C-alpha cells in the first residue's frame, strides 16, 4: 500500500498528472469540434505529421518541440485548405498524408540514434516520461487554447459555413485558426505523450459526451470530465497494478464512451 502511495506522490507521477490534466481539458474540448466537424482522422494525420517532425529533429539535432510544432502547423495549413472533392475525396487525401508521414517517421527514426525504439515511443508514448522542465509549457498552451476556443464563431462556422460567410465572417480565417490550434496542440504534446494518446483524447471523451448530451456546452463539460476521470484513474490504476499508462488511460476512455453510448441508447429507448 505504501509503495504505490509513494510512487503516486513521486515527482514523476505528479508531473504526468499535471500534463495529463491540462491535455485532458484542452484536447477533449477541442475534440467536440473535431468529432462534430467529421475530421477525426485529420487529428490522426496531424499527429503523424508531427511525429515525423520529432523523428527529423532527433536525427539532425533540432529541438523536437519546435520541429513537431512546425510540422503540425504546416499540416494544419494544408488541411485548412478547401479543395474540390470531384476527383478525389478528402478522406483519401487524409489517408495518403497519414501513410506518407508514417513511412517518413519510420525511415527517419531508423537512421536515428535510438532506431525503432524511438518510433515506438512516438506512437505509444509514455506520459510518465515527461521531463519536469517540460511541464510548464503545456500549462501555457492549455490556457491559450482554452481561451481561444471559447468562441461561438467556431460553432457557427462548423455548423453552417455558408451562412457564416453571408453574415460577414471570414470562414477561411476561422478554419485556419481552428486547424492551427489543433496543430499547435498536437505539435506541443506529441513527443511528450505519443500519437495514440493525443488521438484518443481528441476522439473518445467527445464521442461519449456527444452521445449523451443535448447541448454543445454540456457535451464539452462532460467530455472534459470523461477525460479527467480517465486520466487520473488511469494513472492511479497503472501505478497500483503496474500497467502501461497510455493503454490504461485509453482503455478507460473507451469504457466511459461505451457506457455513455449504452446510457444514451437506454434513454432514447425509454423515451419512445
Amino acid at each position, binding site marked *: 500500500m505504501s509503495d504505490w502511495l509513494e510512487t503516486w506522490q513521486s515527482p514523476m507521477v505528479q508531473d504526468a498528472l499535471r500534463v495529463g490534466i491540462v491535455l485532458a481539458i484542452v484536447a477533449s474540448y477541442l475534440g467536440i469540434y473535431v468529432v*462534430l466537424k467529421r475530421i477525426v482522422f485529420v487529428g490522426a494525420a496531424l499527429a503523424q505529421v508531427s511525429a515525423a517532425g520529432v523523428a527529423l529533429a532527433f536525427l539532425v539535432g533540432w529541438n523536437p518541440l519546435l520541429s513537431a510544432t512546425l510540422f503540425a502547423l504546416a499540416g494544419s495549413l494544408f488541411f485548412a485548405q478547401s479543395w474540390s472533392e470531384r476527383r478525389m475525396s478528402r478522406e483519401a487525401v487524409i489517408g495518403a498524408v497519414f501513410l506518407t508521414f508514417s513511412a517518413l517517421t519510420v525511415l527517419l527514426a531508423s537512421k536515428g540514434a535510438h532506431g525503432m525504439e524511438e518510433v515506438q515511443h512516438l506512437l505509444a508514448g509514455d506520459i510518465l516520461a515527461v521531463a519536469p522542465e517540460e511541464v510548464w509549457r503545456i500549462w501555457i498552451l492549455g490556457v491559450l487554447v482554452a481561451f481561444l476556443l471559447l*468562441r461561438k464563431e467556431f460553432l457557427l462556422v462548423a455548423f453552417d459555413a*455558408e*451562412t457564416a460567410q*453571408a453574415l*460577414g*465572417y471570414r470562414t477561411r480565417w476561422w478554419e485556419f485558426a481552428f486547424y492551427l490550434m489543433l496543430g499547435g496542440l498536437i505539435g506541443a504534446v506529441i513527443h511528450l505523450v505519443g500519437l495514440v494518446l493525443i488521438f484518443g483524447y481528441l476522439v473518445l471523451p467527445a464521442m461519449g459526451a456527444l452521445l449523451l448530451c443535448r*447541448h*454543445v456546452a454540456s457535451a464539452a463539460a462532460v467530455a472534459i470530465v470523461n477525460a479527467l476521470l480517465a486520466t487520473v484513474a488511469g494513472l492511479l490504476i497503472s501505478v497500483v497494478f503496474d500497467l502501461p499508462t497510455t493503454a490504461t488511460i485509453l482503455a478507460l476512455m473507451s469504457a466511459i464512451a461505451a457506457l455513455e453510448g449504452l446510457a444514451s441508447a437506454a434513454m432514447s429507448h425509454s423515451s419512445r
Partner: protein
Amino acid sequence: MSDPLVRFQEVQLGYGRQVVLENVQLDIFRGDFFGLVGPNGSGKTTLLRCLLGILKPLSGEITRSAGLRIGYVPQREMLDPRFPLTALDIVLMGRYPCAGVFRSPRRADRDFAMQCLQQVGLADVAHKLYRELSGGQRQRVLIARALAVEPNLLVLDEPTNGLDLPTEAAILGLIEQLHAQSGLTIVLVSHVLNVVARYATRMGVLLDGRLLVGDAEELMQEQVLEEVYGVPVCVQRLDHHYIVAVREIEEACSDE
C-alpha cells in the same frame, strides 16, 4: 422607382478561368419578390453566392445599398443535424454579428430570437433539438434564423426541397406572408418552375450562361422554357398557377 437594394451591372461570374455567367444585369428593388430558376448546373448557386457577397465577380460591378442586411436561408440538406443544437440555439446564430466577437449573445438577443421563432410559428419547440424536428419545422427554424438578422432582403435557396405537398404549401405561404405583411424583399431560388412563377413578382431564368429577367408571363412561355431546358414543354394556367409539363407526358395525359 427607388434605388435598387442590389444592382448587378455587366457582371461576369465564375471560378478562376471558368466563366459560368456572363453580362448579368439585375436590379433587386425594395419590396420585390424575385424568383430565380434554371436547370441543374446553370449557375443558380454561383449567382446566389455572388448576391450574398461570398463570391467576387470576375468583372463588372455589384452595388449594394447602404444598410443592406441579408437574411440567408441555406438548403436544409447542407446542415448536419447531428450537432446538438436546439431550435433556439440555431436562431440565435443570426444574432452573433450583433453580439460581436468574444461576447456571448445577450438576454435581448435571446428574446429577439424567441420572437423570430414565434413569427414562424415555432415558439413551442424552441428547446427541442434540431435533429428531432420535421423537415418543415427545420425549414422554419432556418427562416427564423434569417429573420433574426433583421434583414431587409431575405434570400432562400431551394426552401421546398424534399417537403411533402402540404408542408411545401405552408412554407411558401409563410414566405408570401413575410413578403406581403412585413414588406420583406425576397429572392427565392428554386428548380421548381411553377412554385417560383406562382409567387414571384419578377423572375430570372438562367439560359446558356446568361440571365433573362422579366415577369412570369413573359418568361413562362413554351419557347423560352424549351430553350432553357432543351425539351419540348407545355405551359398551362390554372387560376394563378402555372403548370409546366414535358410535352410527351402532357400528350399522354391529353390522350387519356
